[in-house]
């Protein structure tokens, strides 16, 4: 299984994502410059956190017009796994690959802390190694993680099991019903505000993020073999 991490001007978690793949999955991973419109060699795309284009205009709004995003949309369409973390989630929303939009945190401040999440659906390619309803701890670090969608969209997300994670206990940003991560209808595109790549060893404060990457690998290689 080959991984790509697109790099936009202003991405700053690209290396961290690549490191997680290398160290936790021991699979090949390439950083792909945003001008590159070809992601054919890859099976999974990790859109990293950061401040693509300085988050100017709106978070993720400018990155979505990069050539690499056309390739991401194509990859999603072909059933490859696409994971957007933090700014990567915001880009997926702006690009319309996931429904809804992101607002400024309700308390108006940037917030960096380790939060407790509940795994709402463990039948996704990204969550297979978690228990359903399990509480896990992952770090967040964002100023705009206040997820919004209208009631109709929310109902659809709930009915189709597209809500992957919710904040358990404190909601750190005011997101609708405490949503921390959602998928598309097909389940192969996940966007989440918390950073699983920052939670892969105990010394980081929590290693609960490692299973998210392992789940992806198990799902993919279970379907396609270890290639």
């Amino acid at each position, binding site marked *: 299984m080959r991984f790509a991490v697109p790099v936009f001007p202003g991405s*700053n978690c690209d290396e961290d994502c690549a490191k997680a793949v290398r160290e936790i999955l021991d699979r090949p991973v390439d950083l792909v410059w945003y001008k590159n419109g070809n992601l054919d060699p890859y099976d999974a795309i990790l859109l990293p956190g950061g*401040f693509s284009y*300085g988050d100017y205009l709106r978070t993720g709004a400018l990155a979505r017009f990069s050539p690499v995003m056309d390739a991401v949309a194509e990859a999603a369409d072909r059933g490859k796994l696409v994971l957007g973390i933090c700014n990567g989630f915001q880009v997926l929303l702006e690009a319309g690959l996931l429904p809804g939009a992101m607002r400024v945190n309700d308390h108006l401040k940037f917030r960096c802390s380790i939060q407790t999440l509940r795994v709402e659906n463990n039948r996704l390619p990204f969550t297979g190694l978690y228990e359903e309803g399990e509480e896990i701890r992952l770090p967040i670090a964002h100023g705009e993680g206040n997820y919004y969608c209208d009631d109709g969209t929310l109902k659809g997300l709930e009915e189709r099991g597209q809500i992957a994670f919710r904040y358990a206990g404190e909601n750190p940003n005011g997101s609708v019903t405490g949503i921390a991560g959602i998928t598309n209808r097909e389940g192969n595109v996940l966007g989440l505000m918390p950073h699983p790549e920052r939670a892969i060893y105990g010394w980081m404060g929590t290693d609960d993020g490692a299973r998210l990457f392992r789940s992806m690998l198990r799902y993919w290689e279970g379907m396609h073999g270890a290639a």
Partner: protein
Amino acid sequence: MVRLEERMMADRVDRASENEPGPEEIRDRECFREVGLTAEEYGSIRDHLGRLPNWTELGIYSVMWSEHCSYKNSKPLLKRFPVEGPHVLQGPGEGAGALDIGDGQAVVFKIESHNHPTAVEPFQGAATGVGGIIRDVFSMGARPVALLNSLRFGSLSNPRVRYLFEQAVAGIAHYGNVVGIPTVGGEVEFDASYEGNPLVNAMCVGVLPHEDLQKGIAQGVGNPVIYVGSSTGRDGIHGATFASEELGEDSEEKRPSVQAGDPFMEKLLLEACMELVKKKILLGIQDMGAAGLTCSSAEMAAKGNTGMELDLDRVPQRETGMTPYEILLSESQERMLLVVEDGREGEVREVLDKWGLQSAVIGRVTGDGRYRVRQKGRIVADIPVKTLVDDAPVCYRKGEEPEYYRVNADRHPEEKWKECDPGEALRQVLASPNVASKRWVYQQYDHMVRTSTAVRPGSDAAVIVLDGLDKALAMSTDGNSRYVYLDPRQGGMAAVVEAARNVVCSGARPLGITDCLNFGSPEKPEVFWQLEEAVNGMSEACRHLGTPVVGGNVSLYNESKGTIHPTPVVGMVGLVESRRHITTQEFKREGDRIFLLGETLPELGGSELQLVLDQKVSGRPPRVDLEKESQLQRIILTAIQKGWVSSAHDCSSGGLAVTLAESAFGTHLGAKVHLRTKWDPLVMLFSESQSRAVLSVSPEHAEAFAGLAEAEGVLCAEIGEVCREYLTVEVNGQPAIDARVKDLRAIWEGAIPCAMNPFSTN
């Protein structure tokens, strides 16, 4: 004949801008005073030039000779700092200092102030302070891996102070978060003396392989000088001079002096420069920081023993009609100056284009020692470059012991407050914003990006692991300005030893420091005395601990409504030999034995308890015994390296009581403590005697640990054990504190959010 020609040249320049005074007018109307130069300094400039300076040249001298760039008031004192050591790769004089950490790697770090800009525009002022220090580090060729800061504000009961504090923290957070460098540590103190003059000191730590170390020099006659980054605008003109003046009533109107930062641009600049370093293209690189293009270019030429010729028409400009004076002195942010070998401009452009950065060849290195600037085909400045850097005036000032220092000698605070209940005192001290949890602050900083933060903010020192190595770096910023106010020499020493102790408690060997000296006007003899004494104390402590000063910054004239407390801030970096040694302050296991190391004396002068009970400080601060301090640090580090220590926390603000409480806050544990002492319980619990620490040790190692302390001659008392939920302390068999840790933690965590949101009902 020569003189006539020179005068004609200056006259011609004068006509380039109608609004500027001509050379004769500058002389006759003494316009040099407007840019902060004295008559004597003006005279030296005439001598250096052999003619009258024009307005542009006057501006260049004024910023190059300002305190900010030349350290003219502090230079004689700074020479006292120890700056050498076997592991020093780069001492003071470049963008940042560099120390060897083995394996061919080095750590690069520096701290710098951005006090005056923060006072007038807190968000941008603080943000650009962070931006500047990041550039200082990556212009050395190092990859920045961590940010820290040290903040001083007035009382949070003042709404203006709350605004300044909130905005400054948001500015620091914004810049570091966007660039993607974790802000892992820092400290905050609140005191009325900072009311109109807050302090924002930012520190950056970077790492590089030795061979990547860069210098800010211009070498090789004919080589191109390349400008990279943001366009130049009129922002921040005379920032360096502004930083060297007192803040007056009109400072808020000097707003144009404050620059706006663009951290996104900084991130691109950072990545592009890292790529240029790896490609080994650069001969010299320097940030355009204080005094902008002038300072960077002149310093590069002076350090390279060369000259430089610049063509201002080629400088990317954001505004039209800028005069040479404005272009040269602008402090627009996110700009770098590079010197590369002639012919390699294309390779540089290729990298810069990839990152979408504009660049321009704006001049050449020359061999004639002149700093020559052209605009529209005319020479607008022509100065012997060495006179800008090496001939800056030096002021030898004399200090005078102030009245308050003499009066304080007879005050003995510990004689009072006998009837105060220790449990209630602890609650009050924990609620003091100085001691209270700073989570409200550091929660706004991304402290985990780069996935190398092993000890997050809130412990004694932050720890960053190094990719591909078992080693780690510990870092801390410290400085108790109340101690320094009461006794600058002792306070200066305390700042150094506390920073070292913090680093040691996290499992590291202290390597060296960077410092930021924030003081009032050096023209006041009592302020100069504070500065001199503090520098002496710091120097002595650094010598004793073997931690050289490899760089730093001086911020004087911090006066608005009175003088600030003298505030030397120490940024210490230490090396953790193995990740296994990384230690934090929280208790880990029920049943672990708790040890108090070091001697407690009745030292409440300048303490947090005194401040809480008296609302002011008096007397003498705790004394530092450097010999005891190094013994203490040695045994803590040895015990940690032997694997005996579960937690280590140094005793500082708030004394033993706060140290015990904070050790319990990280977990659900508590402590049962019995103290034997000849002092009053309040003294025993709240004295801030130096060279002390609280360690918890697993029972099987307790005996060996006590033996080690005894062998080293460090006073060591087993004072209790880690238990659940409650903090109970008995002094000489009498109950002193009995509280649920949860309740204490709520006070400690709630204090700052509550102070910041006084109208909130919850």
